[in-house]
């Protein structure tokens, strides 16, 4: 510890400037986040769903900034750098994965208003008449959210460490950033998350475009000349699926598309929207946020012919910036943008997972009675616990960021049949949905541990979903005469 403290104190002027700009950004986040929840009520609905009063601007940034994470800012350029056109699957799944929300979102919001639901699992379990399912969904969500949150913390720590030339270690950078997140999530709940996402979304989009256009210009004379050069030297990177197989490309795209629409922290925003029109407009304008991926890709491709390789693919952008002798303020701004990308996702995840554990696990599944004040207090306790667990994982996990994210998608995708049945089906057999979901999740976990068992090398989430649907079909047929729940 002593030696690391000495390193911090012995920082160069540039490292101080980078740290200073990043600290200014963090203070900005703290200020916006702490003020964000001042108009929300003191109830659990106020803390978890913002009193169902989010307008179009807030919803647009909440969804957009939540989706674009440390994965987008670090791992996406890293994937473009190593595997070229394989990275284009990210546009594909993000683009079509959100379309179902145009129909499902308003429907979920209406049911939520009528029945008082504020989380996805609560709605699925309630509509299917099977409370225990909420417990399973809460547990699966929390177990998937922890690596996802760890990914954001790890990303923040990596950026700070790299850009301060190793003076601020990864564990310290991640801890400072997420202490800020913890403060505004505890104080302001979902509205704090919402308003910081507006601030973070504007910052990261602006910086992504600035770096995405400037780096190709600086290194190659423009975007066109950059791709011409890559086409001469590494042509295999520009044709899809790059250096990956089509199996990988389609499999990763399909499971991400399905999982994307099922993520509880995104889906539960349906319960926060002011009205149906707000939800529909969020889906309509969401592709304008997706355009933000284009400069991110350009950054990754700019690194392909860069004279020196980065220490790891995820560090391609910080590596280029550090090698170009840029003013420290510019490097600091990038640092702020990358932190914004990670924190805007991390805050939504930690808030959602704590809400889900209390609301779905404790209240719905276990049937415990809590007053609104108690519920709010316990959500805050779980925010702290989940943050600590994720932080420990982030500091000790040695694998790469993309595989960590793809792991999380598999179990979450198993919610899809239950969600569709809860929202659209007239016959709802909660027991069948629950058993099928458990089979799907078990298949995901098993195949993750034993990847050689996966048929044709498919993503474990797709195999799990196939089994999930098959078991559901068999149980529905076998239990035709049993009691089924139906909303009139």
């Amino acid at each position, binding site marked *: 510890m002593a030696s690391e403290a000495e390193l911090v104190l012995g920082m160069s002027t540039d490292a101080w400037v980078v740290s200073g700009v990043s600290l200014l950004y963090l203070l900005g986040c703290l200020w916006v986040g702490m003020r964000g929840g001042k108009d929300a009520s003191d109830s659990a609905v106020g803390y978890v769903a913002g009193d169902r009063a989010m307008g179009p601007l807030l919803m647009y940034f909440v969804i957009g900034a939540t989706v674009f994470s440390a994965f987008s800012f670090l791992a996406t350029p890293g994937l473009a750098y190593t595997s070229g056109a394989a990275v*284009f699957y990210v546009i594909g*799944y993000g683009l079509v994965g959100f379309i179902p929300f145009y129909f499902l979102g308003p429907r979920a919001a209406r049911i939520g208003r009528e029945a008082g639901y504020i989380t996805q699992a609560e709605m699925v379990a309630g509509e299917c008449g099977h409370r225990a399912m909420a417990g399973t969904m809460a547990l699966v969500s929390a177990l998937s959210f922890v690596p996802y949150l760890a990914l954001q913390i790890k990303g923040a720590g990596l950026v700070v460490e790299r850009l301060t030339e190793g003076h601020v270690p990864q564990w310290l950078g991640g801890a400072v950033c997420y202490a800020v997140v913890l403060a505004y999530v505890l104080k302001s709940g979902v509205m704090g998350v919402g308003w910081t996402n507006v601030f973070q979304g504007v910052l990261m989009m602006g910086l992504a475009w600035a770096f995405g256009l400037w780096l190709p210009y600086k290194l190659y004379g423009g975007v066109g000349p950059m791709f011409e050069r890559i086409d001469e030297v590494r042509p295999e990177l520009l044709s899809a699926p790059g250096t990956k197989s089509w199996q990988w490309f389609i499999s990763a795209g399909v499971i991400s598309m399905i999982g994307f629409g099922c993520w509880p922290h995104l889906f539960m925003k349906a319960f926060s929207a002011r009205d149906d029109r707000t939800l529909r407009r969020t889906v309509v304008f969401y592709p304008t946020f997706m355009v933000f991926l284009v400069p991110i890709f350009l950054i990754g491709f700019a690194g392909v012919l860069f004279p020196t390789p980065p220490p790891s693919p995820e560090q391609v952008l910080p590596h280029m910036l550090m090698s170009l002798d840029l003013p420290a303020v510019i490097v600091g701004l990038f640092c702020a943008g990358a932190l914004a990308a990670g924190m805007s996702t991390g805050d939504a995840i930690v808030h959602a997972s704590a809400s889900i554990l209390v609301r779905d696990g404790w209240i719905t599944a276990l049937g415990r009675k809590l007053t609104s004040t108690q519920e709010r207090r316990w959500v805050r306790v779980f925010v702290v616990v989940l943050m600590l667990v994720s932080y420990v994982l982030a500091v000790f996990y040695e694998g790469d960021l993309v595989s960590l994210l793809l792991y999380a998608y598999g179990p979450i995708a198993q919610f899809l049949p239950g969600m569709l049945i809860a929202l659209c089906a007239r016959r709802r057999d909660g027991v069948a949905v629950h058993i099928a979901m458990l089979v799907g999740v078990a298949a995901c976990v098993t195949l993750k541990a034993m990847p050689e068992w996966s048929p044709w090398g498919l993503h474990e989430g797709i195999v799990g979903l196939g089994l999930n649907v098959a078991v559901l079909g068999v149980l529905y047929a076998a239990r035709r005469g049993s009691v089924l729940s139906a909303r009139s």
Partner: protein
Amino acid sequence: MFDRRSKVPHVLFALHSALATLCVVGPGYKWWGASARPFVFGLPFSLAWAVGWLISVFVSLLLYERWTRHCEEAERGE
């Protein structure tokens, strides 16, 4: 353009969304959008393909939402 009871906008939107899924996530990318050449506005065709679908889905959502809103307003007016 369409009567509010018409099913055509729903069908067109569903077909377009299915086609987009096929072309950006499914094998359509492999069949039609995978090559690097020709370059479009300096971007390899494989990237321009994804960006083109992004614009196309945005326009289709915009038109569909406008039509949905028009139907709702007409219903409220009755």
